[in-house]
Protein backbone atom coordinates (compact mmCIF):
# COMPACT_ATOMS: atom_id res chain seq x y z
CA UNK A 1 0.00 0.00 0.00
CA UNK A 2 1.12 3.55 -0.80
CA UNK A 3 0.02 6.66 1.00
CA UNK A 4 -0.14 10.26 -0.18
CA UNK A 5 -0.84 13.04 2.33
CA UNK A 6 -1.51 16.68 1.56
CA UNK A 7 -1.66 18.90 4.63
CA UNK A 8 -3.03 22.19 3.36
CA UNK A 9 -3.79 25.48 5.08
CA UNK A 10 -7.51 24.76 4.79
CA UNK A 11 -7.89 21.00 4.62
CA UNK A 12 -5.80 17.90 5.20
CA UNK A 13 -6.20 15.13 2.62
CA UNK A 14 -4.92 11.57 2.32
CA UNK A 15 -5.21 8.95 -0.40
CA UNK A 16 -4.22 5.30 0.02
CA UNK A 17 -3.61 3.26 -3.14
CA UNK A 18 -2.68 -0.36 -3.73
CA UNK A 19 0.06 -1.63 -6.02
CA UNK A 20 -2.31 -1.42 -9.01
CA UNK A 21 -2.85 2.26 -8.32
CA UNK A 22 -6.45 1.78 -7.25
CA UNK A 23 -7.70 4.04 -4.46
CA UNK A 24 -8.39 1.93 -1.35
CA UNK A 25 -9.21 4.74 1.05
CA UNK A 26 -9.24 8.53 1.14
CA UNK A 27 -10.37 11.28 3.47
CA UNK A 28 -10.55 15.04 3.86
CA UNK A 29 -10.59 16.87 7.21
CA UNK A 30 -10.28 20.53 8.19
CA UNK A 31 -6.72 21.45 9.23
CA UNK A 32 -7.94 24.18 11.61
CA UNK A 33 -4.52 25.80 12.03
CA UNK A 34 -3.21 22.63 13.70
CA UNK A 35 -1.26 20.63 11.08
CA UNK A 36 0.15 18.22 13.65
CA UNK A 37 -3.22 17.16 14.94
CA UNK A 38 -4.68 17.03 11.42
CA UNK A 39 -1.75 14.90 10.23
CA UNK A 40 -2.26 12.41 13.07
CA UNK A 41 -6.02 12.30 12.56
CA UNK A 42 -5.97 11.76 8.79
CA UNK A 43 -3.49 8.90 9.14
CA UNK A 44 -5.69 7.16 11.71
CA UNK A 45 -8.74 7.59 9.51
CA UNK A 46 -7.34 6.12 6.28
CA UNK A 47 -5.72 3.22 8.11
CA UNK A 48 -9.07 2.47 9.78
CA UNK A 49 -11.01 2.82 6.55
CA UNK A 50 -8.75 0.30 4.79
CA UNK A 51 -8.47 -1.90 7.93
CA UNK A 52 -4.68 -1.91 7.74
CA UNK A 53 -1.84 -1.03 10.08
CA UNK A 54 1.16 1.29 9.77
CA UNK A 55 3.34 -1.66 8.73
CA UNK A 56 1.19 -2.28 5.66
CA UNK A 57 2.30 1.03 4.16
CA UNK A 58 5.26 0.50 1.84
CA UNK A 59 5.92 4.17 1.23
CA UNK A 60 4.40 7.54 2.09
CA UNK A 61 4.91 10.85 0.32
CA UNK A 62 3.63 14.07 1.82
CA UNK A 63 3.04 17.49 0.32
CA UNK A 64 1.37 20.81 1.06
CA UNK A 65 2.07 23.55 3.59
CA UNK A 66 2.11 21.20 6.62
CA UNK A 67 3.85 18.28 4.88
CA UNK A 68 6.35 17.83 7.72
CA UNK A 69 3.60 16.77 10.13
CA UNK A 70 2.79 13.30 8.82
CA UNK A 71 3.47 10.95 11.73
CA UNK A 72 4.94 8.10 9.70
CA UNK A 73 8.21 7.73 7.80
CA UNK A 74 7.67 9.82 4.69
CA UNK A 75 9.31 11.84 1.98
CA UNK A 76 8.32 15.41 1.26
CA UNK A 77 7.39 16.33 -2.28
CA UNK A 78 6.69 19.63 -4.01
CA UNK A 79 3.04 20.46 -4.51
CA UNK A 80 3.31 21.00 -8.27
CA UNK A 81 5.04 17.64 -8.83
CA UNK A 82 2.28 15.82 -6.98
CA UNK A 83 -0.41 17.73 -8.82
CA UNK A 84 1.17 17.08 -12.22
CA UNK A 85 1.49 13.39 -11.47
CA UNK A 86 -2.11 13.18 -10.31
CA UNK A 87 -3.35 15.16 -13.32
CA UNK A 88 -1.58 12.83 -15.74
CA UNK A 89 -3.22 9.82 -14.13
CA UNK A 90 -6.71 11.32 -13.98
CA UNK A 91 -6.58 12.81 -17.48
CA UNK A 92 -3.56 11.70 -19.54
CA UNK A 93 -4.27 14.39 -22.17
CA UNK A 94 -4.00 17.14 -19.52
CA UNK A 95 -1.40 19.77 -20.48
CA UNK A 96 -2.52 22.62 -18.23
CA UNK A 97 -3.59 22.28 -14.61
CA UNK A 98 -5.21 24.99 -12.51
CA UNK A 99 -5.23 24.32 -8.78
CA UNK A 100 -7.09 26.60 -6.39
CA UNK A 101 -6.66 25.94 -2.69
CA UNK A 102 -7.32 27.78 0.55
CA UNK A 103 -4.24 30.02 0.32
CA UNK A 104 -2.93 29.67 -3.20
CA UNK A 105 -3.76 29.44 -6.85
CA UNK A 106 -1.41 27.67 -9.21
CA UNK A 107 -1.14 27.12 -12.97
CA UNK A 108 1.04 24.24 -14.12
CA UNK A 109 2.10 23.10 -17.62
CA UNK A 110 2.24 19.31 -17.59
CA UNK A 111 3.89 16.98 -20.13
CA UNK A 112 2.56 13.63 -21.38
CA UNK A 113 4.30 11.75 -18.56
CA UNK A 114 3.05 13.93 -15.73
CA UNK A 115 6.16 16.05 -15.30
CA UNK A 116 6.05 19.76 -14.53
CA UNK A 117 7.13 21.82 -17.55
CA UNK A 118 6.54 25.22 -16.04
CA UNK A 119 4.39 26.76 -13.33
CA UNK A 120 3.12 30.04 -11.91
CA UNK A 121 1.61 30.54 -8.51
CA UNK A 122 0.07 33.15 -6.31
CA UNK A 123 0.49 32.32 -2.64
CA UNK A 124 1.04 35.83 -1.38
CA UNK A 125 -2.38 37.41 -1.63
CA UNK A 126 -5.72 36.11 -0.33
CA UNK A 127 -7.57 37.72 -3.23
CA UNK A 128 -6.32 34.87 -5.45
CA UNK A 129 -7.36 31.99 -3.22
CA UNK A 130 -10.18 30.20 -1.48
CA UNK A 131 -9.83 32.38 1.62
CA UNK A 132 -11.26 35.22 -0.46
CA UNK A 133 -14.53 33.33 -0.90
CA UNK A 134 -14.46 32.33 2.78
CA UNK A 135 -14.04 35.92 4.00
CA UNK A 136 -16.86 37.21 1.79
CA UNK A 137 -19.28 34.36 2.55
CA UNK A 138 -18.72 35.05 6.24
CA UNK A 139 -19.36 38.77 5.77
CA UNK A 140 -22.59 37.95 3.91
CA UNK A 141 -23.61 35.19 6.36
CA UNK A 142 -23.91 32.71 3.50
CA UNK A 143 -22.67 29.16 4.25
CA UNK A 144 -19.51 28.47 2.24
CA UNK A 145 -20.95 25.36 0.60
CA UNK A 146 -23.91 27.37 -0.73
CA UNK A 147 -21.83 30.14 -2.33
CA UNK A 148 -21.84 28.49 -5.76
CA UNK A 149 -25.65 28.03 -5.81
CA UNK A 150 -26.16 31.61 -4.71
CA UNK A 151 -23.88 32.91 -7.47
CA UNK A 152 -25.60 30.77 -10.11
CA UNK A 153 -28.96 32.35 -9.23
CA UNK A 154 -27.65 35.88 -9.78
CA UNK A 155 -29.51 37.98 -12.36
CA UNK A 156 -27.12 40.87 -12.26
CA UNK A 157 -23.47 41.58 -13.04
CA UNK A 158 -21.47 43.36 -10.40
CA UNK A 159 -17.78 44.10 -10.73
CA UNK A 160 -15.87 44.04 -7.46
CA UNK A 161 -13.02 46.51 -7.90
CA UNK A 162 -10.96 45.92 -4.74
CA UNK A 163 -7.84 43.84 -5.39
CA UNK A 164 -7.41 42.96 -1.73
CA UNK A 165 -9.67 40.51 0.11
CA UNK A 166 -9.84 42.76 3.17
CA UNK A 167 -10.84 45.78 1.09
CA UNK A 168 -13.26 43.68 -0.94
CA UNK A 169 -14.98 42.82 2.32
CA UNK A 170 -15.61 46.55 2.93
CA UNK A 171 -16.73 46.94 -0.68
CA UNK A 172 -19.18 44.08 -0.20
CA UNK A 173 -20.64 45.72 2.90
CA UNK A 174 -21.12 48.92 0.90
CA UNK A 175 -22.82 46.89 -1.87
CA UNK A 176 -25.19 45.34 0.68
CA UNK A 177 -26.02 48.84 1.94
CA UNK A 178 -26.71 49.82 -1.67
CA UNK A 179 -29.34 47.09 -1.79
CA UNK A 180 -27.41 44.60 -3.95
CA UNK A 181 -28.41 40.96 -3.49
CA UNK A 182 -26.15 38.36 -1.87
CA UNK A 183 -26.47 36.36 -5.10
CA UNK A 184 -25.16 39.17 -7.30
CA UNK A 185 -22.35 40.05 -4.89
CA UNK A 186 -21.15 36.45 -4.66
CA UNK A 187 -21.28 36.13 -8.45
CA UNK A 188 -19.13 39.27 -8.67
CA UNK A 189 -16.64 37.89 -6.12
CA UNK A 190 -16.29 34.54 -7.90
CA UNK A 191 -15.83 36.31 -11.21
CA UNK A 192 -13.10 38.46 -9.70
CA UNK A 193 -11.34 35.32 -8.39
CA UNK A 194 -11.73 33.60 -11.78
CA UNK A 195 -10.23 36.61 -13.59
CA UNK A 196 -7.21 36.50 -11.27
CA UNK A 197 -6.67 32.79 -11.88
CA UNK A 198 -6.97 33.19 -15.65
CA UNK A 199 -4.50 36.10 -15.58
CA UNK A 200 -2.07 33.83 -13.71
CA UNK A 201 -2.64 30.96 -16.15
CA UNK A 202 -2.09 33.22 -19.17
CA UNK A 203 1.48 33.77 -18.03
CA UNK A 204 1.99 30.19 -19.24
CA UNK A 205 1.19 29.04 -22.74
CA UNK A 206 -2.17 27.39 -22.14
CA UNK A 207 -2.62 24.11 -23.97
CA UNK A 208 -5.50 21.67 -24.00
CA UNK A 209 -6.68 19.74 -22.15
CA UNK A 210 -7.19 21.85 -19.09
CA UNK A 211 -7.84 20.29 -15.70
CA UNK A 212 -9.02 22.11 -12.57
CA UNK A 213 -8.25 20.86 -9.06
CA UNK A 214 -8.21 21.97 -5.43
CA UNK A 215 -11.09 22.58 -3.07
CA UNK A 216 -12.36 25.49 -5.14
CA UNK A 217 -12.80 23.25 -8.20
CA UNK A 218 -15.93 22.05 -6.40
CA UNK A 219 -17.44 25.49 -6.81
CA UNK A 220 -19.38 25.16 -10.07
CA UNK A 221 -20.01 28.86 -10.48
CA UNK A 222 -16.27 29.55 -10.17
CA UNK A 223 -15.42 26.85 -12.72
CA UNK A 224 -18.00 28.35 -15.13
CA UNK A 225 -16.40 31.76 -14.69
CA UNK A 226 -12.95 30.30 -15.33
CA UNK A 227 -14.25 28.74 -18.57
CA UNK A 228 -15.82 32.02 -19.61
CA UNK A 229 -12.67 34.05 -18.90
CA UNK A 230 -10.41 31.44 -20.54
CA UNK A 231 -12.81 31.05 -23.47
CA UNK A 232 -12.02 27.38 -23.20
CA UNK A 233 -13.54 24.25 -21.73
CA UNK A 234 -12.07 22.81 -18.53
CA UNK A 235 -12.35 19.40 -16.83
CA UNK A 236 -12.75 18.86 -13.12
CA UNK A 237 -10.29 16.36 -11.62
CA UNK A 238 -12.04 13.13 -10.65
CA UNK A 239 -12.91 11.45 -8.39
CA UNK A 240 -12.56 14.49 -6.08
CA UNK A 241 -10.59 17.55 -7.23
CA UNK A 242 -9.57 18.30 -3.64
CA UNK A 243 -7.68 14.98 -3.46
CA UNK A 244 -5.53 15.43 -6.58
CA UNK A 245 -2.27 16.42 -4.84
CA UNK A 246 -2.60 13.62 -2.25
CA UNK A 247 -3.39 11.15 -5.03
CA UNK A 248 -0.34 12.33 -7.01
CA UNK A 249 1.80 11.97 -3.88
CA UNK A 250 0.58 8.38 -3.48
CA UNK A 251 1.39 7.65 -7.14
CA UNK A 252 4.90 9.06 -6.70
CA UNK A 253 5.32 6.92 -3.57
CA UNK A 254 4.25 3.88 -5.59
CA UNK A 255 6.77 4.68 -8.37
CA UNK A 256 9.49 4.99 -5.78
CA UNK A 257 8.43 1.72 -4.15
CA UNK A 258 8.58 -0.12 -7.45
Amino acid at each position, binding site marked *: MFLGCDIGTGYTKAVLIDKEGTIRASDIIATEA*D*PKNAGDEILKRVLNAASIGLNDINACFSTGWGRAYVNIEHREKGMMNCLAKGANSVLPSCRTLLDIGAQHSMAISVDDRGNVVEFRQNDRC*AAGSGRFVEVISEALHVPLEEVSDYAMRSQENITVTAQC*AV*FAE*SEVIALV*NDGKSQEAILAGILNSLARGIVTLAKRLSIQNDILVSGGLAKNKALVNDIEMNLENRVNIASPDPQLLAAFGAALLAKEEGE
Partner: protein
Amino acid sequence: MIVAGCDVGSLTAKALIMDEDENIVAYDVMTVLPNPLRSAEEIMSRTLKKANMKLSDIDFCVSTGYGREKITFAKKDISEISCHGRGAHWINPKIRTVIDIGGQDLKAIRVNRDGELMDFIMNDKCAAGTGRFLEGIAKTLKVELYDLGELALSGTNPVTINSVCTIFTQFDVMCLIVEGADKADIAAGVARTMATRMHKLLRKVGIKKEVAITGGVAKNQGVVKCLEELIRGKIVQFTEIDPQIVGALGAALFARDEVKRSRM
Protein backbone atom coordinates in the same frame (compact mmCIF):
# COMPACT_ATOMS: atom_id res chain seq x y z
CA MET B 1 -13.13 83.60 12.65
CA ILE B 2 -14.16 80.04 13.50
CA VAL B 3 -13.12 77.24 11.14
CA ALA B 4 -13.48 73.47 11.10
CA GLY B 5 -11.85 70.45 9.55
CA CYS B 6 -13.74 67.23 9.03
CA ASP B 7 -11.86 64.03 8.19
CA VAL B 8 -13.95 60.99 7.27
CA GLY B 9 -11.66 57.99 6.93
CA SER B 10 -12.39 54.37 6.20
CA LEU B 11 -12.61 53.39 9.86
CA THR B 12 -12.96 56.59 11.88
CA ALA B 13 -14.38 60.09 11.42
CA LYS B 14 -12.67 63.08 13.02
CA ALA B 15 -13.60 66.74 13.35
CA LEU B 16 -11.80 69.73 14.80
CA ILE B 17 -12.81 73.34 15.45
CA MET B 18 -10.26 76.17 15.53
CA ASP B 19 -10.68 79.80 16.59
CA GLU B 20 -9.27 83.12 15.34
CA ASP B 21 -5.99 82.67 17.27
CA GLU B 22 -5.30 79.17 15.99
CA ASN B 23 -6.45 77.59 19.23
CA ILE B 24 -8.04 74.18 19.01
CA VAL B 25 -11.45 74.71 20.55
CA ALA B 26 -12.70 71.13 20.35
CA TYR B 27 -12.19 67.87 18.51
CA ASP B 28 -13.63 64.37 18.50
CA VAL B 29 -13.07 60.94 16.98
CA MET B 30 -15.65 58.24 16.32
CA THR B 31 -16.05 55.00 14.39
CA VAL B 32 -17.60 55.63 10.97
CA LEU B 33 -21.22 54.88 10.14
CA PRO B 34 -22.00 53.09 6.84
CA ASN B 35 -22.67 56.41 5.10
CA PRO B 36 -19.83 59.00 4.89
CA LEU B 37 -22.15 62.04 5.01
CA ARG B 38 -23.93 60.72 8.10
CA SER B 39 -20.56 60.04 9.72
CA ALA B 40 -19.51 63.61 8.96
CA GLU B 41 -22.75 65.07 10.31
CA GLU B 42 -22.52 63.01 13.48
CA ILE B 43 -18.87 63.80 14.24
CA MET B 44 -19.42 67.46 13.46
CA SER B 45 -22.43 67.69 15.76
CA ARG B 46 -20.51 65.96 18.56
CA THR B 47 -17.59 68.35 18.15
CA LEU B 48 -19.86 71.40 17.97
CA LYS B 49 -21.52 70.27 21.17
CA LYS B 50 -18.16 70.03 22.92
CA ALA B 51 -17.34 73.56 21.70
CA ASN B 52 -20.81 74.78 22.67
CA MET B 53 -21.42 76.00 19.13
CA LYS B 54 -23.82 75.59 16.19
CA LEU B 55 -22.91 74.72 12.61
CA SER B 56 -23.77 78.29 11.60
CA ASP B 57 -20.96 79.56 13.88
CA ILE B 58 -18.41 77.92 11.55
CA ASP B 59 -17.16 80.34 8.90
CA PHE B 60 -15.55 77.73 6.73
CA CYS B 61 -15.22 73.96 6.88
CA VAL B 62 -12.81 71.89 4.81
CA SER B 63 -13.40 68.17 4.44
CA THR B 64 -10.76 65.53 3.89
CA GLY B 65 -10.29 61.76 3.94
CA TYR B 66 -11.78 58.90 2.02
CA GLY B 67 -15.34 60.29 2.17
CA ARG B 68 -14.45 63.96 1.69
CA GLU B 69 -16.39 64.57 -1.53
CA LYS B 70 -19.69 63.52 0.01
CA ILE B 71 -19.67 66.03 2.85
CA THR B 72 -22.14 68.65 1.75
CA PHE B 73 -21.63 71.13 4.62
CA ALA B 74 -17.93 71.50 3.79
CA LYS B 75 -17.23 74.32 1.37
CA LYS B 76 -14.08 72.71 0.04
CA ASP B 77 -12.44 69.30 0.05
CA ILE B 78 -8.68 68.75 0.13
CA SER B 79 -6.78 65.45 -0.08
CA GLU B 80 -5.80 63.91 3.24
CA ILE B 81 -2.19 63.85 2.07
CA SER B 82 -1.96 67.64 2.04
CA CYS B 83 -3.94 67.86 5.27
CA HIS B 84 -1.71 65.44 7.17
CA GLY B 85 1.41 67.23 6.00
CA ARG B 86 0.03 70.62 6.91
CA GLY B 87 -1.34 69.50 10.27
CA ALA B 88 1.88 67.78 11.34
CA HIS B 89 3.99 70.75 10.30
CA TRP B 90 1.73 73.12 12.27
CA ILE B 91 2.21 71.06 15.42
CA ASN B 92 5.97 70.94 14.95
CA PRO B 93 7.48 73.19 12.23
CA LYS B 94 10.65 71.06 12.14
CA ILE B 95 8.71 68.17 10.61
CA ARG B 96 9.71 67.31 7.02
CA THR B 97 8.48 63.72 6.76
CA VAL B 98 5.13 62.41 7.92
CA ILE B 99 4.28 58.76 8.25
CA ASP B 100 0.55 58.25 8.26
CA ILE B 101 -0.89 54.83 8.91
CA GLY B 102 -4.64 54.86 8.64
CA GLY B 103 -7.38 52.29 8.61
CA GLN B 104 -6.93 51.30 4.98
CA ASP B 105 -3.75 52.89 3.73
CA LEU B 106 -0.12 53.68 4.37
CA LYS B 107 1.34 57.04 3.41
CA ALA B 108 4.76 58.59 3.51
CA ILE B 109 4.53 62.36 3.02
CA ARG B 110 7.30 64.92 2.52
CA VAL B 111 6.67 68.59 3.27
CA ASN B 112 8.88 71.67 2.89
CA ARG B 113 9.72 74.24 5.56
CA ASP B 114 6.37 75.92 4.99
CA GLY B 115 4.42 72.71 5.46
CA GLU B 116 3.57 72.44 1.76
CA LEU B 117 3.34 69.04 0.18
CA MET B 118 6.52 68.11 -1.75
CA ASP B 119 6.14 64.42 -2.47
CA PHE B 120 4.26 61.42 -1.22
CA ILE B 121 3.85 57.73 -1.70
CA MET B 122 0.84 55.71 -0.75
CA ASN B 123 -0.36 52.15 -0.71
CA ASP B 124 -4.10 51.74 -0.67
CA LYS B 125 -4.37 48.60 -2.80
CA CYS B 126 -3.49 46.08 -0.10
CA ALA B 127 -4.45 46.00 3.57
CA ALA B 128 -1.03 44.70 4.67
CA GLY B 129 0.47 47.02 7.24
CA THR B 130 -2.64 49.18 7.69
CA GLY B 131 -4.98 49.63 10.65
CA ARG B 132 -7.18 46.92 9.17
CA PHE B 133 -4.23 44.57 9.41
CA LEU B 134 -3.83 45.34 13.12
CA GLU B 135 -7.58 45.01 13.65
CA GLY B 136 -7.56 41.52 12.16
CA ILE B 137 -4.59 40.48 14.29
CA ALA B 138 -6.15 41.91 17.46
CA LYS B 139 -9.30 39.92 16.76
CA THR B 140 -7.32 36.72 16.14
CA LEU B 141 -5.30 37.26 19.32
CA LYS B 142 -8.49 38.19 21.21
CA VAL B 143 -7.01 41.40 22.58
CA GLU B 144 -8.27 44.99 22.31
CA LEU B 145 -6.89 46.84 19.28
CA TYR B 146 -5.47 49.63 21.43
CA ASP B 147 -3.79 47.16 23.82
CA LEU B 148 -1.81 45.57 21.01
CA GLY B 149 1.02 48.15 21.23
CA GLU B 150 1.65 47.61 24.94
CA LEU B 151 1.51 43.88 24.42
CA ALA B 152 4.09 44.13 21.61
CA LEU B 153 6.48 46.11 23.85
CA SER B 154 6.34 43.34 26.44
CA GLY B 155 7.33 40.67 23.89
CA THR B 156 10.89 39.48 24.44
CA ASN B 157 11.26 37.10 21.53
CA PRO B 158 9.34 38.43 18.50
CA VAL B 159 8.01 35.71 16.19
CA THR B 160 8.87 35.78 12.49
CA ILE B 161 5.92 36.31 10.19
CA ASN B 162 6.42 35.26 6.60
CA SER B 163 3.12 36.29 5.06
CA VAL B 164 2.46 39.75 3.75
CA CYS B 165 -1.28 39.39 3.20
CA THR B 166 -3.47 40.37 6.18
CA ILE B 167 -5.65 37.29 5.89
CA PHE B 168 -2.70 34.92 5.56
CA THR B 169 -1.03 36.57 8.55
CA GLN B 170 -4.18 36.01 10.61
CA PHE B 171 -3.89 32.33 9.71
CA ASP B 172 -0.18 32.33 10.67
CA VAL B 173 -1.14 33.83 14.02
CA MET B 174 -3.78 31.13 14.55
CA CYS B 175 -1.12 28.48 13.94
CA LEU B 176 1.29 30.22 16.34
CA ILE B 177 -1.40 30.25 19.03
CA VAL B 178 -1.97 26.51 18.50
CA GLU B 179 1.79 25.95 18.78
CA GLY B 180 1.70 27.76 22.11
CA ALA B 181 3.59 30.91 21.15
CA ASP B 182 3.36 33.79 23.61
CA LYS B 183 0.79 36.45 22.67
CA ALA B 184 3.26 39.23 23.45
CA ASP B 185 5.87 37.69 21.15
CA ILE B 186 3.25 37.42 18.40
CA ALA B 187 2.23 41.06 18.90
CA ALA B 188 5.92 42.05 18.76
CA GLY B 189 6.40 40.07 15.53
CA VAL B 190 3.34 41.71 14.02
CA ALA B 191 4.60 45.18 14.98
CA ARG B 192 7.94 44.43 13.34
CA THR B 193 6.22 43.23 10.15
CA MET B 194 4.18 46.43 9.98
CA ALA B 195 7.18 48.64 10.60
CA THR B 196 9.22 46.86 7.92
CA ARG B 197 6.45 47.38 5.39
CA MET B 198 6.16 51.07 6.24
CA HIS B 199 9.93 51.50 6.15
CA LYS B 200 10.08 50.21 2.56
CA LEU B 201 7.57 52.86 1.52
CA LEU B 202 9.40 55.51 3.52
CA ARG B 203 12.69 54.78 1.77
CA LYS B 204 11.05 55.33 -1.59
CA VAL B 205 9.97 58.84 -0.69
CA GLY B 206 13.21 59.62 1.19
CA ILE B 207 13.54 60.14 4.92
CA LYS B 208 14.22 63.73 5.95
CA LYS B 209 14.26 64.77 9.58
CA GLU B 210 12.25 65.39 11.62
CA VAL B 211 9.96 62.45 11.07
CA ALA B 212 6.48 62.41 12.62
CA ILE B 213 3.88 59.69 12.78
CA THR B 214 0.14 60.26 12.52
CA GLY B 215 -3.00 58.20 12.07
CA GLY B 216 -4.54 55.61 14.35
CA VAL B 217 -1.58 53.23 14.21
CA ALA B 218 0.65 55.98 15.70
CA LYS B 219 -0.94 54.96 18.99
CA ASN B 220 0.68 51.53 18.75
CA GLN B 221 4.00 52.01 20.57
CA GLY B 222 5.23 48.63 19.40
CA VAL B 223 5.09 49.72 15.75
CA VAL B 224 6.61 53.15 16.55
CA LYS B 225 9.54 51.59 18.41
CA CYS B 226 10.29 49.18 15.55
CA LEU B 227 10.13 52.05 13.04
CA GLU B 228 12.58 54.06 15.14
CA GLU B 229 14.99 51.13 15.06
CA LEU B 230 14.63 50.85 11.28
CA ILE B 231 15.19 54.55 10.53
CA ARG B 232 17.85 54.74 13.26
CA GLY B 233 16.38 57.86 14.77
CA LYS B 234 13.63 59.30 16.88
CA ILE B 235 10.14 59.68 15.56
CA VAL B 236 8.25 62.73 16.76
CA GLN B 237 5.09 61.63 18.49
CA PHE B 238 2.33 64.04 19.20
CA THR B 239 1.45 63.82 22.83
CA GLU B 240 -0.65 66.92 23.36
CA ILE B 241 -2.60 66.39 20.16
CA ASP B 242 -4.27 63.11 19.23
CA PRO B 243 -2.34 61.71 16.22
CA GLN B 244 -5.63 60.64 14.72
CA ILE B 245 -6.87 64.22 14.32
CA VAL B 246 -3.86 65.61 12.41
CA GLY B 247 -5.75 65.34 9.10
CA ALA B 248 -8.75 67.24 10.49
CA LEU B 249 -6.33 69.80 11.96
CA GLY B 250 -4.69 70.31 8.55
CA ALA B 251 -8.14 70.71 6.99
CA ALA B 252 -9.03 73.38 9.55
CA LEU B 253 -5.78 75.23 8.76
CA PHE B 254 -6.66 75.18 5.05
CA ALA B 255 -10.09 76.51 6.02
CA ARG B 256 -8.35 79.45 7.77
CA ASP B 257 -6.46 80.22 4.54
CA GLU B 258 -9.77 80.34 2.69
CA VAL B 259 -11.32 82.77 5.15
CA LYS B 260 -8.21 84.97 5.17
CA ARG B 261 -8.12 84.99 1.37
CA SER B 262 -11.78 86.03 1.20
CA ARG B 263 -11.08 88.96 3.57
CA MET B 264 -8.27 90.31 1.44
